[in-house]
């Protein structure tokens, strides 16, 4: 970061995701790709080489019918608050954490594509551009001017739709304000979710949904035991679903089914 001096409001943006509400429709994934100028898949791409800043998994309790239960699990960068693994390992400061928003950001133009950050990320929520980005002829007209398209050979990931943060700041400036108008900055997935399963807000504001979720006994964070203070809270009333975030479940020896 450039300076420790932090004028204006200090936020810690986070998310609260209600697994009991998510229907796995995938609107959030598409909205995310549209918002952030993520290109359609290369014909050769798979779910291991594609780019999905936000990915919805289907997770079940490993039981058989009729006891079988499933939830849909939206996964994006968990925006680790301390000991941010990717931020610490990047050799040339291509990953930055904004002290005024807590957002972990990848700067593609600085990235040399060593992928050390991907090895460091426990959530596999960083994606590498294995191919040159390509849009069908004419479709580049629909690109979002607030987000810079990436080039081949760099890493990218969810940054809470940082372009929208910029836009919100500009709108604040129109009103002559220095700080973003609360509620004016909302990531695309939150806006797109027809079930209202994803909520977004400032963890420093006790009234915000994530701050509430942080206190909710039904909510958990992924791999919280690693001590990286992720800022995405998941919530479910199903007891087995609450254990999804617990790494000791990790062998997941059950044969994973298609989402």
């Amino acid at each position: 970061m450039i300076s420790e001096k932090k004028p204006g409001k200090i936020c810690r943006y986070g998310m609260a995701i209600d697994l009991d509400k998510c229907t796995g429709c995938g609107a959030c994934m598409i909205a995310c790709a549209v918002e952030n100028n993520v290109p359609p898949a290369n014909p050769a791409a798979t779910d291991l080489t594609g780019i999905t800043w936000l990915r919805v998994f289907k997770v079940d309790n490993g039981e058989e019918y009729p006891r079988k239960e499933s939830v849909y699990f939206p996964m994006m960068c968990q925006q680790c608050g301390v000991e941010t693994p990717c931020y610490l390992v990047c050799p040339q400061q291509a990953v930055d954490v904004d002290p005024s928003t807590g957002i972990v950001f990848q700067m593609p133009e600085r990235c040399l594509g060593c992928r050390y950050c991907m090895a460091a990320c426990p959530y596999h929520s960083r994606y590498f551009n294995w191919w040159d980005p390509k849009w069908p002829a004419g479709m580049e007209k629909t690109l979002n001017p607030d987000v810079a398209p990436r080039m081949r050979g760099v890493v990218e990931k969810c940054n809470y739709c940082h372009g929208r943060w910029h836009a919100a700041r500009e709108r604040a400036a129109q009103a002559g304000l220095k700080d973003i108008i609360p509620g004016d900055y909302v990531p695309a997935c939150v806006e797109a979710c027809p079930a209202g399963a994803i909520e977004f807000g400032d963890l420093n504001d006790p009234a915000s949904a994530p701050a509430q979720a942080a206190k909710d006994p039904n909510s958990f964070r992924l791999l919280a035991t690693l001590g990286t203070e992720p800022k995405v809270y998941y919530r479910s009333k199903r007891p087995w679903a609450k254990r999804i975030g617990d790494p000791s479940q990790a062998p997941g020896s059950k044969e994973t089914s298609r989402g």
Partner: protein
Amino acid sequence: MVPILAGVLASLCAGWIGFPRVIYSSRPQPVEFSHPIHAHKAGMLCVDCHAPREDGTYAGVPPLSRCAGCHTANLGPTAAEKRFIADYVKPKREPEWAVYARQPENVWFSHTPHVRVARLPCEQCHGDQASSDQPRLYQEDRISGYSRDIWGYRTAGGAVPGMKMDDCIACHRQEGLAHSCLDCHK
């Protein structure tokens, strides 16, 4: 010893005098536009042509329609104007202006906070254009493709303040506005 020194000298000359000339490709602006004539003779203000949108964002280089508003026919005797009318106004062809200050794609810049909130005068970043009787050559780095104003050595005589990242950071630091790279990068 002599040949060695000769070699050093040769590359010093080439590197410091020749190279800066070679690395940039230059091209003139399509129209010999004179700010002073418009500013002083016609007594116009910057915002008369470079008007921001109502939301404060910069509307870009004024379109031909803005010029054609007055320049329906020759207003003056100059050959430049004759050419302008003939080449652009009559055939309704937009002049392909080269923008000195065009930032790289990964820079998120908005005039709104700088003009509305910080109340910076245009000159602070763009320099005193009103006195430039002849538009400067537009110089572009041959390899990186960036304008000389935003990337490279100071332009001739430093008449124009730089618009490089360092210049932005310097001001933001001074104002205590600098958080991180994310302030301006997208």
